[in-house]
């Protein structure tokens, strides 16, 4: 079976590449297209994304994502809030990688102000960012299984997430919206026992990842549903501006942690897992292996965490970055998040424009969904990892 071949129009449903070629002669047998609106409240879009499909039987002719149901005007709101408040707000748009978001805002402001966080703060930031990445990826590992009908991985994912959230809560006081970064460093240092628990968790999660392998990665049914489905070639991915695990699954190892290291990523040893075919299975596989790499980074942080302060000695009471602009790119959990920050020397930014990975990931849904079957819509949507808040902001 040719796995990478997408089924083309004119074939009867028979699975990708194995249908019977049927030529319908003339106009005697007219069929009518059905418009089906998936969402904005639909179990498989985890959020309020709406996809309008035109269906020919169960085959999707066109798919149009409709976004904006969750628009909260983050960019505009940032112009009316000071830098400290923006950090708290930026937590919210991609609620699954809150720390990564606030880290980006803090980095951008710091760069504009020409300060750098102390050594220890940078290492701790990296530790938190990686734990956040694990949190995020576990969520998608679980929900992808759920969307394909396997309900158990979701609960396992939440079991692991619960442990990590407890860990994050120890240090930050919150389970989702951490607000732990401050411009210049961090809110507080880690509490006693954090690193010890963190070490325990790395071991535990590494062990429990095998469960996902047993339930999904090694499962024949799962492979049948995902291998060869929603193939995204690397070139197309790049042209749509797709980043993160989806881009890596298409074989492009572009990761700003490697290519433009921020924090201390240049001092730790890790790999960027890449896929071969760019299908749903590869995307899932890459996500799975990214967790392993994140755990590797966390272990290295444990070993290398230096002593010292977490905030630079003198910080102004009101943050007033000098006039100018900057662009910071970070590899957030779902891909590259960019922050274009313009200051006019005020306590508030003049403009803060975000480039969020989910938005770009969603933009190529029409490409991926063209010609696939309705059940494969789920296998594709679930593997195009996005958070609706991150799409709409």
């Amino acid at each position: 079976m040719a796995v990478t071949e997408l089924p083309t129009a004119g074939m009867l449903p028979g699975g990708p590449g194995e249908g019977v070629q049927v030529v319908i002669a003339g106009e005697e047998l007219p069929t009518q297209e059905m418009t089906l609106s998936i969402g904005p409240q639909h179990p498989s879009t985890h959020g309020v994304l709406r996809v309008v499909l035109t269906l020919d039987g169960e085959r999707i002719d066109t798919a149009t994502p409709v976004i904006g149901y969750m628009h909260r005007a983050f960019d505009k709101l940032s112009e009316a809030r000071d830098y400290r408040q923006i950090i708290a707000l930026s937590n919210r748009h991609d609620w699954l990688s809150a720390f990564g978001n606030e880290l980006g805002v803090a980095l951008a402001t710091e760069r504009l102000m020409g300060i750098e966080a102390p050594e220890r703060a940078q290492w701790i930031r990296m530790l938190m960012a990686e734990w956040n990445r694990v949190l995020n990826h576990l969520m998608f590992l679980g929900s992808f299984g759920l969307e394909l009908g396997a309900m158990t991985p979701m609960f396992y994912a939440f079991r692991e997430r619960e442990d990590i959230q407890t860990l994050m809560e120890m240090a930050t006081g919150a389970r989702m919206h951490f607000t732990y970064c401050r411009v210049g460093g961090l809110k507080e240092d880690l509490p006693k026992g954090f690193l010890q628990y963190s070490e325990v968790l790395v071991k535990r999660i590494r062990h429990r990842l095998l469960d996902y392998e047993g339930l999904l990665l090694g499962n024949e049914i799962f492979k049948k549903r995902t291998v060869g489905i929603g193939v995204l070639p690397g070139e197309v991915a790049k042209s749509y501006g797709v980043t993160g695990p989806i881009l890596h699954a298409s074989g492009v190892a572009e990761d700003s942690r490697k290519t433009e290291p921020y924090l201390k990523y240049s001092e730790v040893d890790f790999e960027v897992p890449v896929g071969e075919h760019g299908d749903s299975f590869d995307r899932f596989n890459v996500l799975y292996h990214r967790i392993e790499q994140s755990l590797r980074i966390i272990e290295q942080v444990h070993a290398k965490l230096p002593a010292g302060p977490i905030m630079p000695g003198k910080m102004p009471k009101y943050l007033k970055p000098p006039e100018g602009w900057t662009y910071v790119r970070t590899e957030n959990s779902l891909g590259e998040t960019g922050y274009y920050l313009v200051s006019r020397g005020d306590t508030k930014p003049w403009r803060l424009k975000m480039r969020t990975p989910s938005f770009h990931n969603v933009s190529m849904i029409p490409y991926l969904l063209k010609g696939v079957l309705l059940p494969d819509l789920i296998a594709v949507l679930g593997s195009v990892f996005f958070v609706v808040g991150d799409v709409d902001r």
Partner: protein
Amino acid sequence: MAMTKEQRAAKLRELEQKIASKKGIGALYGLAKGMSVTMRTMLKPAITTQYPHVKPDLPERTRGVIALKEENCTVCMLCSRECPDWCIYIDSHKDVMPPKTPGARGRTRNVLDRFAIDYALCMYCGICVDVCPFDALFWSPHFEYSTDDLSTLTHEMDTLAKWMDYVPPPPALEDGAEDPVEVSKEAVSYGAPAVAAPVATATAPAATATAAPPRTEPAPSQEGAAADSATPAGGTTEAAETQAPPAREEGHDEEPPQIDQEAYDAAIAQGKPDREARALAKRAWILKRRKAQS
């Protein structure tokens, strides 16, 4: 023979992958593997905690609710202004106090009339707690204040003050951490009872159980300042002394307060929730220790 556990596991995994890569058998093996995962999990105990029956033991830093230490508030309005969604409501009036020396101008001061937080709006970012210069706001892990009516989520001063009972002492820091600026700026270093002891004896008797929640906040000087500037509602200097900050008289003990089993049992017997009982028990323990020290 002398294979470690990891080596054995690695070897097993290698074998497993060899089987899984075979075509027909691999598929069956994969299916069986999935079945074994669920079965194994079933035979292990579940991880669920039965919440209303078993209360979670939350970390000290948990941002559950914001408590107000009323006597520390100087109505500076910083929290209200810095709040990203403006959910803090403060009302106050100016009070003219009798002059110290006869004939001089009367001193004015702010009196807090209303301090309310609308938890329906609050996004629990903690900026208000951060910016408060006089340590009047604290985070507490207490979280059981949900209602079925949005309007009742606005909590007034008295409730916020009551929640001070739930504020735990801040946790000790991880190795290699530096003390917060507030602590290191002062001569009194965090976790050095020797320095703090004289201070403690000086003001200890003044502290009453009602005024001193069991916490050791590392900001003695500011709290002192707060107490001075915000003379409490009574308006007398005597009352000001009774409101002496707990951090000072308590001293900075290395060990966090423990749970006094007796007080805990008593509180539980009174039908108090576990969290409250723990807070009360910790307070009892601190009081006991203080007694033992003096």
